[in-house]
């Protein structure tokens, strides 16, 4: 009996570490971030590009602020060594070359942050045309990264 409790505890610890190791945790967090990001970009796209008649300044502002918050959260720290291989919510799509392209990746991250901050500013003005244009720049910064470090499915 006395030996069973520590054993159970030890087993639990081992299992927990195995299931949520550092690498998998980073992948999961970043996948979650992009998933939440897409909810917010989706709202802006819908309201300024696809259905301009549904434009809602409060929702756009909230979405733009969320996008800026995600951009400024230090996403690049979730790209630690070894995180090109592993399963978060699903298999990581990070190209192994990412680790040799640190300078470019940092630059792209900085661009994303800059454009996302600008989007939050522009959103506050409620100018649909300006929001659409700035949203395009944020999208282009997303694409810059996708093209550089993301594996094609």
């Amino acid at each position, binding site marked *: 009996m006395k030996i069973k409790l520590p054993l159970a505890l030890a087993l639990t610890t081992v299992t927990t570490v195995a299931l949520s190791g550092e690498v998998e945790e980073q992948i999961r967090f970043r996948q979650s971030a992009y998933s939440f990001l897409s909810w917010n*970009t989706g709202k802006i796209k819908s309201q300024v590009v696809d259905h301009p008649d549904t434009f809602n300044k409060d929702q756009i502002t909230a979405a733009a602020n969320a996008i800026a918050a995600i951009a400024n959260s230090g996403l690049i720290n979730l790209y630690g060594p070894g995180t090109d291989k592993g399963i978060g919510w699903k298999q990581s799509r990070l190209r192994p070359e990412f680790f040799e392209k640190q300078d470019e990746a940092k630059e792209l991250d900085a661009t994303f942050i800059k454009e996302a901050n600008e989007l939050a500013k522009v959103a506050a003005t409620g100018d649909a045309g300006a929001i659409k244009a700035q949203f395009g720049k944020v999208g282009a910064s997303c694409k810059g990264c996708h093209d550089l470090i993301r594996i094609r499915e």
Partner: protein
Amino acid sequence: MKETVHIWDWPLRLFHWLLVVAVVGAYVTGKLGGDLTEWHGPIGALILGLLIFRILWGFVGTKHARFASFFPTFGRLIAYFKGNWQGVGHNPVGALSVIALLTVLATLVGTGLFANDDIAFEGPLFNLVDKSLSDRLSGIHALALDVLMVLLALHLIAIAFHHLVKKNNLVLPMLTGKKRVPTDLASSVPSVGALRFLMTVAISSTLVWGIWSGDLADYFKPIESLQTAALRLGW
């Protein structure tokens, strides 16, 4: 002895140059993304329409536009490589290139309909498939683009080769429709009737509209009800 004759009918030439413009447009909007993303889909729709038009025109167009007249069969290819091929339209190797280009473009359009870029693009039929399948099709879309680039490079190299080495200008006939050919092969294609052209355009745009809205079946319902009515009337 050589003679100048019409070989490419004007709808074929119009198709070719519109396709050039549209493919450049699709490439630029796809590569740059951002603001231009919203044009990528509509340009894709134009390419879809052009491809459907070209396939139909391959049956109802004038002689050298028809697949039957230039389809690169094994026999024709062998004859061409032995130097025994004679003709004034697409030669069998050019015909291979035509078929390959149309196939790759169809792959691009077909996958593009379901594709997404995880940013601001969703093909018009994105909702008909799982996200994971859409991602896979988007990957194939990108791969097909690589293949297209190789084919276009070969296309341009072949044109340059014909121009410089074989002293055979392929670009001018694609603009004017006219070509100087040996007299024994000289026969002009007939002029194209406006009705034939307009019918083909109408069918192509109807199909694009139906595919784009994802309810091709619904779109043909009026035709079905006409058929039912006709049956009832005992036609």
